[in-house]
Protein backbone atom coordinates (compact mmCIF):
# COMPACT_ATOMS: atom_id res chain seq x y z
CA UNK A 1 0.00 0.00 0.00
CA UNK A 2 1.31 3.43 -0.96
CA UNK A 3 0.06 6.59 0.80
CA UNK A 4 0.72 10.25 0.00
CA UNK A 5 0.49 12.21 3.26
CA UNK A 6 0.27 16.00 3.50
CA UNK A 7 0.21 18.24 6.55
CA UNK A 8 0.30 22.03 6.66
CA UNK A 9 -1.13 22.63 10.12
CA UNK A 10 2.17 24.26 11.17
CA UNK A 11 5.04 23.73 8.71
CA UNK A 12 4.42 22.48 5.17
CA UNK A 13 5.21 18.79 4.80
CA UNK A 14 4.49 15.82 2.59
CA UNK A 15 5.60 12.18 2.55
CA UNK A 16 5.21 8.93 0.65
CA UNK A 17 4.50 6.05 3.02
CA UNK A 18 4.67 2.41 1.98
CA UNK A 19 4.17 -0.77 3.96
CA UNK A 20 7.10 -2.18 1.96
CA UNK A 21 9.66 0.47 2.87
CA UNK A 22 11.98 0.53 5.87
CA UNK A 23 10.25 2.46 8.68
CA UNK A 24 7.49 2.99 6.15
CA UNK A 25 8.82 6.28 4.75
CA UNK A 26 9.80 6.28 1.06
CA UNK A 27 10.40 10.01 0.68
CA UNK A 28 9.50 13.06 2.74
CA UNK A 29 10.04 16.77 3.01
CA UNK A 30 9.18 19.44 5.55
CA UNK A 31 9.82 23.17 5.67
CA UNK A 32 11.20 24.98 8.70
CA UNK A 33 8.94 27.99 8.49
CA UNK A 34 5.20 28.20 8.92
CA UNK A 35 4.33 30.84 6.32
CA UNK A 36 5.36 29.67 2.84
CA UNK A 37 2.98 26.75 2.27
CA UNK A 38 1.44 28.03 -0.94
CA UNK A 39 4.86 28.38 -2.60
CA UNK A 40 6.64 25.23 -1.44
CA UNK A 41 3.99 22.54 -1.14
CA UNK A 42 3.29 21.80 -4.82
CA UNK A 43 6.96 21.83 -5.90
CA UNK A 44 7.74 19.68 -2.84
CA UNK A 45 5.15 17.08 -3.79
CA UNK A 46 6.26 17.14 -7.44
CA UNK A 47 9.87 16.46 -6.36
CA UNK A 48 8.79 13.81 -3.86
CA UNK A 49 7.03 11.83 -6.56
CA UNK A 50 9.86 12.37 -9.02
CA UNK A 51 12.55 11.23 -6.56
CA UNK A 52 10.56 8.11 -5.69
CA UNK A 53 9.79 7.40 -9.34
CA UNK A 54 6.12 7.25 -8.50
CA UNK A 55 3.11 8.67 -10.32
CA UNK A 56 -0.32 9.56 -9.02
CA UNK A 57 -1.69 6.35 -10.49
CA UNK A 58 0.61 4.31 -8.22
CA UNK A 59 -0.95 5.73 -5.04
CA UNK A 60 -3.58 3.85 -3.08
CA UNK A 61 -4.84 6.84 -1.12
CA UNK A 62 -4.10 10.32 0.15
CA UNK A 63 -4.13 11.46 3.76
CA UNK A 64 -4.14 15.09 4.86
CA UNK A 65 -3.76 16.66 8.27
CA UNK A 66 -7.01 18.45 9.11
CA UNK A 67 -5.54 20.58 11.88
CA UNK A 68 -6.00 22.25 14.18
CA UNK A 69 -3.63 24.89 12.82
CA UNK A 70 -3.55 28.50 11.61
CA UNK A 71 -6.34 28.65 9.03
CA UNK A 72 -4.67 29.89 5.87
CA UNK A 73 -1.75 27.47 6.12
CA UNK A 74 -4.01 24.59 7.08
CA UNK A 75 -6.24 25.18 4.05
CA UNK A 76 -3.33 25.10 1.62
CA UNK A 77 -2.66 21.45 2.47
CA UNK A 78 -6.31 20.43 2.43
CA UNK A 79 -6.98 22.26 -0.86
CA UNK A 80 -3.94 20.55 -2.37
CA UNK A 81 -4.94 17.11 -1.07
CA UNK A 82 -8.57 17.41 -2.19
CA UNK A 83 -7.56 18.53 -5.68
CA UNK A 84 -4.94 15.79 -6.10
CA UNK A 85 -7.43 13.19 -4.91
CA UNK A 86 -10.00 14.44 -7.43
CA UNK A 87 -7.55 14.62 -10.34
CA UNK A 88 -6.07 11.19 -9.62
CA UNK A 89 -9.39 9.71 -8.59
CA UNK A 90 -7.99 8.41 -5.27
CA UNK A 91 -9.65 8.10 -1.87
CA UNK A 92 -8.88 10.95 0.53
CA UNK A 93 -8.88 10.83 4.31
CA UNK A 94 -8.14 13.31 7.06
CA UNK A 95 -6.25 12.78 10.29
CA UNK A 96 -6.02 15.11 13.27
CA UNK A 97 -2.64 16.79 12.90
CA UNK A 98 -1.60 16.48 16.56
CA UNK A 99 -1.69 12.69 16.11
CA UNK A 100 1.56 13.03 14.15
CA UNK A 101 3.42 14.30 17.23
CA UNK A 102 1.67 11.77 19.50
CA UNK A 103 3.03 8.92 17.36
CA UNK A 104 6.55 10.34 17.56
CA UNK A 105 6.22 10.56 21.35
CA UNK A 106 5.01 6.96 21.51
CA UNK A 107 8.01 5.77 19.49
CA UNK A 108 10.55 7.76 21.52
CA UNK A 109 12.34 7.03 24.78
CA UNK A 110 10.41 9.97 26.25
CA UNK A 111 7.08 8.12 26.04
CA UNK A 112 4.67 8.63 28.98
CA UNK A 113 1.48 6.82 29.97
CA UNK A 114 -0.47 10.07 29.69
CA UNK A 115 0.62 13.27 28.00
CA UNK A 116 -0.45 16.37 26.07
CA UNK A 117 0.50 17.42 22.56
CA UNK A 118 0.45 21.17 21.84
CA UNK A 119 1.22 23.43 18.89
CA UNK A 120 1.23 27.20 18.48
CA UNK A 121 -2.23 28.67 17.90
CA UNK A 122 -0.89 32.26 17.83
CA UNK A 123 -2.67 34.98 19.86
CA UNK A 124 -0.99 33.56 23.02
CA UNK A 125 -2.94 30.31 22.69
CA UNK A 126 -2.10 26.69 21.87
CA UNK A 127 -3.89 23.88 20.09
CA UNK A 128 -3.75 20.84 22.36
CA UNK A 129 -4.98 17.30 22.91
CA UNK A 130 -4.55 14.66 25.61
CA UNK A 131 -3.35 11.14 24.81
CA UNK A 132 -2.87 7.91 26.74
CA UNK A 133 -0.39 5.26 25.78
CA UNK A 134 -0.43 1.51 26.38
CA UNK A 135 2.65 -0.57 25.59
CA UNK A 136 2.59 -1.79 22.02
CA UNK A 137 -0.49 0.27 21.07
CA UNK A 138 -1.01 3.39 19.05
CA UNK A 139 -1.46 6.54 21.15
CA UNK A 140 -5.10 6.98 22.12
CA UNK A 141 -6.73 10.40 21.87
CA UNK A 142 -8.79 10.90 25.05
CA UNK A 143 -9.52 14.64 25.04
CA UNK A 144 -9.40 17.33 22.40
CA UNK A 145 -8.34 18.85 20.22
CA UNK A 146 -8.92 22.19 21.93
CA UNK A 147 -7.61 25.73 21.63
CA UNK A 148 -6.77 27.70 24.77
CA UNK A 149 -4.18 29.46 26.89
CA UNK A 150 -1.11 27.41 27.76
CA UNK A 151 -1.46 28.36 31.42
CA UNK A 152 -4.83 26.60 31.55
CA UNK A 153 -3.63 23.20 30.28
CA UNK A 154 -4.10 20.07 32.46
CA UNK A 155 -1.03 19.34 34.58
CA UNK A 156 0.66 16.77 32.33
CA UNK A 157 3.92 16.73 30.36
CA UNK A 158 3.51 18.71 27.13
CA UNK A 159 5.10 17.58 23.85
CA UNK A 160 5.43 19.73 20.74
CA UNK A 161 6.27 23.31 19.81
CA UNK A 162 3.26 24.60 21.74
CA UNK A 163 4.92 23.40 24.93
CA UNK A 164 8.32 24.77 24.00
CA UNK A 165 7.00 28.29 23.43
CA UNK A 166 5.32 28.33 26.85
CA UNK A 167 7.94 26.33 28.79
CA UNK A 168 7.66 28.96 31.55
CA UNK A 169 4.07 27.97 32.39
CA UNK A 170 3.80 24.31 31.29
CA UNK A 171 5.75 21.13 31.93
CA UNK A 172 7.30 21.11 28.45
CA UNK A 173 9.32 18.11 27.31
CA UNK A 174 12.71 19.44 26.21
CA UNK A 175 13.30 16.86 23.48
CA UNK A 176 10.05 17.81 21.78
CA UNK A 177 10.10 21.56 22.44
CA UNK A 178 10.24 22.47 18.74
CA UNK A 179 8.46 19.46 17.22
CA UNK A 180 5.74 20.26 14.66
CA UNK A 181 3.19 17.93 13.08
CA UNK A 182 4.89 16.22 10.15
CA UNK A 183 3.35 14.42 7.17
CA UNK A 184 5.75 11.45 7.53
CA UNK A 185 4.48 10.67 11.04
CA UNK A 186 0.89 11.41 10.08
CA UNK A 187 1.17 9.01 7.13
CA UNK A 188 2.68 6.32 9.35
CA UNK A 189 -0.18 6.79 11.80
CA UNK A 190 -2.67 6.40 8.95
CA UNK A 191 -0.90 3.27 7.69
CA UNK A 192 -0.97 1.77 11.20
CA UNK A 193 -4.69 2.50 11.58
CA UNK A 194 -5.52 1.03 8.18
CA UNK A 195 -3.40 -2.06 8.88
CA UNK A 196 -5.37 -2.49 12.10
CA UNK A 197 -8.55 -2.41 10.04
CA UNK A 198 -9.75 0.97 11.27
CA UNK A 199 -11.69 3.47 9.17
CA UNK A 200 -10.23 6.94 8.65
CA UNK A 201 -12.27 10.17 8.86
CA UNK A 202 -12.80 12.61 5.98
CA UNK A 203 -10.88 15.82 5.24
CA UNK A 204 -13.14 18.31 7.07
CA UNK A 205 -10.86 20.92 8.64
CA UNK A 206 -10.77 21.35 12.43
CA UNK A 207 -10.76 25.12 12.74
CA UNK A 208 -11.79 25.18 16.45
CA UNK A 209 -12.31 28.94 16.19
CA UNK A 210 -15.03 30.85 14.39
CA UNK A 211 -14.00 33.62 12.03
CA UNK A 212 -13.41 36.87 13.89
CA UNK A 213 -16.33 38.52 12.15
CA UNK A 214 -18.83 40.31 14.36
CA UNK A 215 -22.40 40.75 13.28
CA UNK A 216 -22.81 44.52 13.39
CA UNK A 217 -25.34 45.70 15.97
CA UNK A 218 -28.17 48.06 15.11
CA UNK A 219 -26.94 51.54 14.23
CA UNK A 220 -27.40 54.09 17.01
CA UNK A 221 -29.94 56.69 16.08
CA UNK A 222 -29.07 60.31 16.65
CA UNK A 223 -31.64 61.74 19.06
Amino acid at each position, binding site marked *: MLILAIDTSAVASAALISDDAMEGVVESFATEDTRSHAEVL*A*PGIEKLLGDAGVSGADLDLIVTGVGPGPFTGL*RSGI*ATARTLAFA*WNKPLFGLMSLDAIALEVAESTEAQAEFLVATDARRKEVYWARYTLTEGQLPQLVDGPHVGFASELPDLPVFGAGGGIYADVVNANGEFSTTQPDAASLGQFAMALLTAGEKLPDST*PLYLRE*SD*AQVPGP*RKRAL
Partner: protein
Amino acid sequence: MNHPGHVNQPGTVQPLVLGIESSCDETGVGIVRGTTLLTNTVSSSMDEHVRFGGVIPEIASRAHLDAFVPTLQEALHEAGVALDDIDAIAVTSGPGLAGALMVGVCAAKALSVATGKPLYAINHLVAHVGVGLLDGAGGGTGGLGSGARLPENLGALLVSGGHTEILRIRSITDDVEMLGSTIDDAAGEAYDKVARLLGLGYPGGPAIDKVAKHGNAKAIRFPRGLTQPKYMGTAEEPGPHRYDWSFSGLKTAVARCVEQFEARGEDVPVADIAAAFQEAVVDVITSKAVLACKENRITDLLLGGGVAANSRLRELTGQRCGAAGITLHVPPLSLCTDNGAMVAALGSQLIMAGIGPSGVAFAPDSSLPVTTVSV
Protein backbone atom coordinates in the same frame (compact mmCIF):
# COMPACT_ATOMS: atom_id res chain seq x y z
CA MET B 1 9.42 24.89 -12.73
CA ASN B 2 8.46 25.24 -16.37
CA HIS B 3 6.76 22.59 -18.34
CA PRO B 4 8.66 22.88 -21.60
CA GLY B 5 7.36 21.97 -24.96
CA HIS B 6 3.73 21.86 -24.07
CA VAL B 7 1.55 24.56 -25.51
CA ASN B 8 3.65 27.67 -25.30
CA GLN B 9 4.61 27.88 -28.92
CA PRO B 10 3.20 31.04 -30.43
CA GLY B 11 0.25 30.47 -32.63
CA THR B 12 -1.07 27.44 -30.78
CA VAL B 13 -4.54 27.50 -32.22
CA GLN B 14 -7.52 27.47 -29.90
CA PRO B 15 -5.97 26.15 -26.67
CA LEU B 16 -8.37 24.53 -24.21
CA VAL B 17 -7.83 26.44 -20.96
CA LEU B 18 -9.31 25.95 -17.51
CA GLY B 19 -9.43 29.10 -15.36
CA ILE B 20 -9.70 29.28 -11.58
CA GLU B 21 -10.83 32.35 -9.61
CA SER B 22 -10.92 32.76 -5.80
CA SER B 23 -9.82 36.33 -5.07
CA CYS B 24 -12.97 37.42 -3.21
CA ASP B 25 -16.24 35.63 -2.45
CA GLU B 26 -16.85 33.79 -5.73
CA THR B 27 -15.31 30.39 -6.41
CA GLY B 28 -15.16 30.29 -10.19
CA VAL B 29 -14.07 27.68 -12.70
CA GLY B 30 -14.37 28.53 -16.37
CA ILE B 31 -13.29 26.69 -19.49
CA VAL B 32 -12.59 28.30 -22.86
CA ARG B 33 -11.29 27.05 -26.18
CA GLY B 34 -9.37 29.91 -27.74
CA THR B 35 -11.92 32.72 -27.53
CA THR B 36 -14.96 30.45 -27.25
CA LEU B 37 -16.59 30.17 -23.85
CA LEU B 38 -17.46 26.56 -22.98
CA THR B 39 -18.55 27.00 -19.38
CA ASN B 40 -18.58 29.55 -16.60
CA THR B 41 -19.35 27.87 -13.27
CA VAL B 42 -19.51 30.02 -10.16
CA SER B 43 -20.24 29.21 -6.53
CA SER B 44 -20.75 32.28 -4.37
CA SER B 45 -20.52 32.60 -0.59
CA MET B 46 -22.40 35.93 -0.76
CA ASP B 47 -25.30 34.64 1.35
CA GLU B 48 -22.94 33.87 4.22
CA HIS B 49 -21.77 37.51 4.31
CA VAL B 50 -25.23 39.10 4.38
CA ARG B 51 -25.53 39.27 8.16
CA PHE B 52 -22.13 40.97 8.38
CA GLY B 53 -22.94 43.58 5.73
CA GLY B 54 -19.68 42.94 3.87
CA VAL B 55 -17.34 40.17 2.73
CA ILE B 56 -15.64 38.46 5.68
CA PRO B 57 -12.32 37.12 4.35
CA GLU B 58 -12.13 34.07 6.64
CA ILE B 59 -15.68 33.02 5.79
CA ALA B 60 -14.96 33.46 2.08
CA SER B 61 -11.79 31.37 2.39
CA ARG B 62 -13.59 28.53 4.17
CA ALA B 63 -16.26 28.56 1.48
CA HIS B 64 -13.64 28.43 -1.31
CA LEU B 65 -12.09 25.32 0.22
CA ASP B 66 -15.40 23.47 0.27
CA ALA B 67 -16.66 24.78 -3.07
CA PHE B 68 -13.59 24.23 -5.22
CA VAL B 69 -13.74 20.54 -6.17
CA PRO B 70 -17.55 20.50 -6.68
CA THR B 71 -17.28 23.65 -8.86
CA LEU B 72 -14.45 22.09 -10.88
CA GLN B 73 -16.42 18.90 -11.32
CA GLU B 74 -19.50 20.78 -12.50
CA ALA B 75 -17.47 22.91 -14.93
CA LEU B 76 -15.86 19.85 -16.54
CA HIS B 77 -19.26 18.19 -16.79
CA GLU B 78 -20.95 21.24 -18.34
CA ALA B 79 -18.17 21.72 -20.86
CA GLY B 80 -18.09 18.03 -21.64
CA VAL B 81 -14.31 17.84 -21.31
CA ALA B 82 -12.03 15.63 -19.24
CA LEU B 83 -9.06 16.96 -17.28
CA ASP B 84 -6.77 15.14 -19.72
CA ASP B 85 -8.16 17.20 -22.63
CA ILE B 86 -7.13 20.52 -21.05
CA ASP B 87 -4.08 22.22 -22.60
CA ALA B 88 -3.35 24.58 -19.69
CA ILE B 89 -4.59 25.87 -16.36
CA ALA B 90 -4.81 29.55 -15.37
CA VAL B 91 -5.39 30.92 -11.88
CA THR B 92 -5.85 34.34 -10.32
CA SER B 93 -2.70 34.97 -8.26
CA GLY B 94 -3.66 38.52 -7.27
CA PRO B 95 -4.74 41.11 -6.41
CA GLY B 96 -7.37 40.00 -3.89
CA LEU B 97 -7.91 38.71 -0.37
CA ALA B 98 -4.75 36.84 0.68
CA GLY B 99 -6.43 33.86 2.35
CA ALA B 100 -8.97 33.50 -0.45
CA LEU B 101 -6.33 33.65 -3.21
CA MET B 102 -4.35 30.96 -1.38
CA VAL B 103 -7.11 28.36 -1.82
CA GLY B 104 -7.43 28.80 -5.58
CA VAL B 105 -3.67 28.97 -6.07
CA CYS B 106 -3.02 25.79 -4.06
CA ALA B 107 -5.79 23.96 -5.90
CA ALA B 108 -4.50 25.14 -9.28
CA LYS B 109 -0.98 24.06 -8.45
CA ALA B 110 -2.21 20.64 -7.33
CA LEU B 111 -4.12 20.31 -10.60
CA SER B 112 -0.97 21.20 -12.52
CA VAL B 113 1.13 18.68 -10.57
CA ALA B 114 -1.51 15.97 -10.95
CA THR B 115 -2.05 16.43 -14.69
CA GLY B 116 1.33 17.74 -15.84
CA LYS B 117 -0.46 20.65 -17.57
CA PRO B 118 1.27 24.07 -17.58
CA LEU B 119 -0.02 26.64 -15.08
CA TYR B 120 -0.41 30.39 -15.70
CA ALA B 121 -0.62 32.70 -12.65
CA ILE B 122 -2.51 35.74 -13.87
CA ASN B 123 -3.65 39.19 -12.80
CA HIS B 124 -7.29 39.42 -11.77
CA LEU B 125 -7.76 43.00 -13.01
CA VAL B 126 -6.42 42.23 -16.45
CA ALA B 127 -8.64 39.14 -16.57
CA HIS B 128 -11.66 41.46 -16.19
CA VAL B 129 -10.52 42.99 -19.48
CA GLY B 130 -9.57 39.66 -21.08
CA VAL B 131 -13.12 38.40 -20.73
CA GLY B 132 -14.16 41.01 -23.30
CA LEU B 133 -12.21 39.06 -25.89
CA LEU B 134 -14.49 36.05 -25.65
CA ASP B 135 -16.77 35.69 -28.67
CA GLY B 136 -19.91 37.70 -28.15
CA ALA B 137 -18.68 39.16 -24.85
CA GLY B 138 -18.25 42.69 -26.10
CA GLY B 139 -21.78 43.41 -25.03
CA GLY B 140 -24.78 44.97 -26.66
CA THR B 141 -22.79 47.94 -27.89
CA GLY B 142 -20.62 45.91 -30.21
CA GLY B 143 -18.08 43.12 -29.85
CA LEU B 144 -14.71 43.97 -28.38
CA GLY B 145 -12.65 41.38 -30.07
CA SER B 146 -13.54 40.23 -33.52
CA GLY B 147 -10.99 37.51 -34.20
CA ALA B 148 -9.49 37.99 -30.75
CA ARG B 149 -8.00 41.39 -31.52
CA LEU B 150 -8.35 44.29 -29.16
CA PRO B 151 -9.11 47.82 -30.29
CA GLU B 152 -5.94 49.90 -30.62
CA ASN B 153 -6.75 52.47 -27.97
CA LEU B 154 -8.46 50.47 -25.27
CA GLY B 155 -9.28 51.46 -21.72
CA ALA B 156 -11.11 49.56 -18.99
CA LEU B 157 -13.21 50.89 -16.15
CA LEU B 158 -13.52 48.30 -13.38
CA VAL B 159 -16.06 48.95 -10.65
CA SER B 160 -16.93 46.38 -7.99
CA GLY B 161 -16.95 45.66 -4.27
CA GLY B 162 -13.21 45.10 -4.49
CA HIS B 163 -12.02 47.64 -7.02
CA THR B 164 -12.49 50.95 -8.75
CA GLU B 165 -9.85 51.39 -11.41
CA ILE B 166 -9.27 52.81 -14.84
CA LEU B 167 -6.71 50.98 -16.95
CA ARG B 168 -5.07 51.54 -20.27
CA ILE B 169 -4.40 48.40 -22.28
CA ARG B 170 -1.82 48.54 -25.04
CA SER B 171 -1.36 44.79 -25.07
CA ILE B 172 -3.55 42.44 -23.04
CA THR B 173 -0.62 40.08 -22.54
CA ASP B 174 2.18 42.40 -21.54
CA ASP B 175 1.37 46.11 -21.51
CA VAL B 176 -1.29 47.29 -19.09
CA GLU B 177 -1.11 50.53 -17.16
CA MET B 178 -3.11 51.81 -14.17
CA LEU B 179 -4.28 55.36 -14.94
CA GLY B 180 -6.26 55.85 -11.75
CA SER B 181 -7.88 54.01 -8.85
CA THR B 182 -9.68 54.57 -5.58
CA ILE B 183 -7.41 55.70 -2.76
CA ASP B 184 -9.68 54.28 -0.05
CA ASP B 185 -12.92 52.29 -0.40
CA ALA B 186 -13.98 50.59 -3.61
CA ALA B 187 -17.25 51.93 -5.03
CA GLY B 188 -19.03 48.68 -4.18
CA GLU B 189 -17.85 48.93 -0.57
CA ALA B 190 -19.25 52.45 -0.37
CA TYR B 191 -22.58 51.10 -1.66
CA ASP B 192 -22.53 48.37 1.02
CA LYS B 193 -21.77 50.81 3.83
CA VAL B 194 -24.39 53.34 2.75
CA ALA B 195 -26.98 50.60 2.24
CA ARG B 196 -26.35 49.56 5.83
CA LEU B 197 -26.73 53.15 7.03
CA LEU B 198 -30.06 53.35 5.24
CA GLY B 199 -31.18 49.90 6.42
CA LEU B 200 -31.37 48.57 2.86
CA GLY B 201 -29.47 45.28 3.30
CA TYR B 202 -26.60 43.59 1.51
CA PRO B 203 -25.26 43.67 -1.13
CA GLY B 204 -25.71 47.41 -1.28
CA GLY B 205 -25.39 47.94 -5.05
CA PRO B 206 -28.68 46.40 -6.20
CA ALA B 207 -30.48 47.55 -3.00
CA ILE B 208 -29.58 51.22 -3.51
CA ASP B 209 -30.09 51.06 -7.28
CA LYS B 210 -33.66 49.82 -6.71
CA VAL B 211 -34.65 52.39 -4.05
CA ALA B 212 -32.92 55.24 -5.90
CA LYS B 213 -35.37 54.87 -8.78
CA HIS B 214 -38.06 56.31 -6.49
CA GLY B 215 -35.92 59.16 -5.17
CA ASN B 216 -34.92 62.62 -6.29
CA ALA B 217 -31.18 62.66 -6.91
CA LYS B 218 -31.16 66.46 -6.81
CA ALA B 219 -32.82 66.70 -3.36
CA ILE B 220 -29.42 66.60 -1.65
CA ARG B 221 -25.96 67.19 -3.03
CA PHE B 222 -23.21 64.96 -1.75
CA PRO B 223 -19.50 65.68 -2.30
CA ARG B 224 -17.51 64.28 -5.23
CA GLY B 225 -14.17 63.18 -3.77
CA LEU B 226 -10.80 64.36 -5.18
CA THR B 227 -12.36 66.80 -7.63
CA GLN B 228 -10.86 70.00 -6.22
CA PRO B 229 -8.24 71.75 -8.40
CA LYS B 230 -5.40 70.87 -6.03
CA TYR B 231 -6.06 67.17 -6.73
CA MET B 232 -7.00 67.54 -10.40
CA GLY B 233 -4.40 69.98 -11.72
CA THR B 234 -4.61 70.41 -15.50
CA ALA B 235 -4.09 68.12 -18.47
CA GLU B 236 -0.62 69.61 -18.93
CA GLU B 237 0.25 69.61 -15.23
CA PRO B 238 -1.87 66.87 -13.64
CA GLY B 239 -2.46 67.04 -9.88
CA PRO B 240 -1.67 64.09 -7.63
CA HIS B 241 -5.11 62.44 -8.06
CA ARG B 242 -6.37 63.57 -11.44
CA TYR B 243 -7.86 60.16 -12.34
CA ASP B 244 -8.23 58.82 -8.77
CA TRP B 245 -11.34 58.39 -6.66
CA SER B 246 -12.13 58.58 -2.95
CA PHE B 247 -15.40 57.42 -1.41
CA SER B 248 -14.76 57.58 2.34
CA GLY B 249 -15.73 61.28 2.58
CA LEU B 250 -18.95 60.58 0.70
CA LYS B 251 -19.87 57.79 3.11
CA THR B 252 -19.28 60.17 6.07
CA ALA B 253 -21.41 62.86 4.42
CA VAL B 254 -24.29 60.40 4.01
CA ALA B 255 -23.99 59.35 7.67
CA ARG B 256 -24.07 62.99 8.79
CA CYS B 257 -27.07 63.70 6.59
CA VAL B 258 -29.02 60.77 8.08
CA GLU B 259 -28.12 61.90 11.61
CA GLN B 260 -29.35 65.42 10.92
CA PHE B 261 -32.77 64.20 9.83
CA GLU B 262 -32.96 61.98 12.89
CA ALA B 263 -31.81 64.76 15.25
CA ARG B 264 -34.60 66.97 13.93
CA GLY B 265 -37.06 64.16 14.54
CA GLU B 266 -37.88 63.95 10.82
CA ASP B 267 -38.34 60.86 8.70
CA VAL B 268 -35.17 59.99 6.82
CA PRO B 269 -35.88 60.40 3.08
CA VAL B 270 -34.25 57.08 2.22
CA ALA B 271 -35.05 57.12 -1.50
CA ASP B 272 -33.75 60.67 -1.99
CA ILE B 273 -30.55 59.94 -0.07
CA ALA B 274 -30.02 56.71 -2.03
CA ALA B 275 -30.58 58.52 -5.32
CA ALA B 276 -28.31 61.44 -4.37
CA PHE B 277 -25.59 59.07 -3.12
CA GLN B 278 -25.78 56.99 -6.28
CA GLU B 279 -25.62 60.12 -8.41
CA ALA B 280 -22.51 61.31 -6.57
CA VAL B 281 -20.76 57.96 -7.05
CA VAL B 282 -21.74 57.51 -10.67
CA ASP B 283 -21.05 61.15 -11.58
CA VAL B 284 -17.53 61.15 -10.23
CA ILE B 285 -16.68 57.70 -11.59
CA THR B 286 -17.86 58.47 -15.11
CA SER B 287 -16.54 62.04 -15.30
CA LYS B 288 -13.05 61.01 -14.23
CA ALA B 289 -13.09 57.89 -16.41
CA VAL B 290 -14.11 59.86 -19.49
CA LEU B 291 -11.51 62.52 -18.69
CA ALA B 292 -8.83 59.84 -18.45
CA CYS B 293 -9.97 58.39 -21.78
CA LYS B 294 -9.91 61.74 -23.57
CA GLU B 295 -6.50 62.72 -22.23
CA ASN B 296 -5.00 59.33 -23.05
CA ARG B 297 -6.63 59.08 -26.48
CA ILE B 298 -8.65 56.03 -25.46
CA THR B 299 -11.38 55.39 -28.02
CA ASP B 300 -12.86 52.16 -26.69
CA LEU B 301 -13.81 51.62 -23.06
CA LEU B 302 -14.70 48.28 -21.48
CA LEU B 303 -16.85 48.36 -18.37
CA GLY B 304 -16.18 45.49 -15.94
CA GLY B 305 -16.78 44.42 -12.32
CA GLY B 306 -20.01 43.69 -10.49
CA VAL B 307 -21.16 47.32 -10.27
CA ALA B 308 -21.46 47.23 -14.07
CA ALA B 309 -24.90 45.81 -13.22
CA ASN B 310 -25.89 49.19 -11.80
CA SER B 311 -28.46 50.77 -14.12
CA ARG B 312 -27.44 54.37 -13.46
CA LEU B 313 -23.73 53.63 -13.93
CA ARG B 314 -24.41 51.98 -17.28
CA GLU B 315 -26.70 54.81 -18.36
CA LEU B 316 -24.42 57.70 -17.44
CA THR B 317 -21.26 55.96 -18.67
CA GLY B 318 -23.05 55.32 -21.95
CA GLN B 319 -24.18 58.94 -22.27
CA ARG B 320 -20.83 60.48 -21.44
CA CYS B 321 -18.84 58.05 -23.58
CA GLY B 322 -21.22 58.74 -26.46
CA ALA B 323 -20.78 62.49 -26.09
CA ALA B 324 -17.00 62.09 -26.06
CA GLY B 325 -16.95 59.75 -29.06
CA ILE B 326 -15.83 56.77 -27.02
CA THR B 327 -17.24 53.34 -27.84
CA LEU B 328 -18.45 51.59 -24.69
CA HIS B 329 -18.32 47.81 -24.34
CA VAL B 330 -20.22 46.06 -21.55
CA PRO B 331 -19.87 42.26 -21.37
CA PRO B 332 -22.87 40.24 -20.14
CA LEU B 333 -23.21 40.61 -16.37
CA SER B 334 -22.23 36.99 -15.65
CA LEU B 335 -18.85 37.80 -17.18
CA CYS B 336 -18.53 41.20 -15.41
CA THR B 337 -18.69 39.76 -11.89
CA ASP B 338 -15.75 37.67 -10.70
CA ASN B 339 -15.60 34.34 -12.53
CA GLY B 340 -13.28 31.65 -13.80
CA ALA B 341 -14.04 32.22 -17.48
CA MET B 342 -12.23 35.57 -17.42
CA VAL B 343 -9.17 33.85 -15.98
CA ALA B 344 -9.32 31.18 -18.66
CA ALA B 345 -9.86 33.85 -21.33
CA LEU B 346 -6.70 35.72 -20.30
CA GLY B 347 -4.78 32.45 -19.98
CA SER B 348 -5.79 31.59 -23.51
CA GLN B 349 -4.53 34.98 -24.77
CA LEU B 350 -1.17 34.43 -23.03
CA ILE B 351 -0.77 31.02 -24.64
CA MET B 352 -1.73 32.28 -28.11
CA ALA B 353 0.85 35.07 -27.65
CA GLY B 354 3.51 32.46 -26.91
CA ILE B 355 4.09 33.52 -23.31
CA GLY B 356 5.51 30.79 -21.05
CA PRO B 357 3.80 29.35 -18.01
CA SER B 358 4.46 30.36 -14.40
CA GLY B 359 5.36 26.96 -12.97
CA VAL B 360 4.16 25.91 -9.51
CA ALA B 361 6.57 27.77 -7.20
CA PHE B 362 5.10 31.31 -7.35
CA ALA B 363 3.45 32.95 -4.35
CA PRO B 364 0.00 34.54 -4.54
CA ASP B 365 0.25 38.34 -4.17
CA SER B 366 -2.70 40.17 -2.65
CA SER B 367 -1.45 43.47 -4.11
CA LEU B 368 -0.16 42.25 -7.49
CA PRO B 369 0.36 45.36 -9.65
CA VAL B 370 -1.63 45.59 -12.86
CA THR B 371 1.62 45.87 -14.84
CA THR B 372 2.22 42.19 -13.99
CA VAL B 373 -0.22 40.48 -16.36
CA SER B 374 1.18 37.02 -15.64
CA VAL B 375 3.74 35.91 -13.08
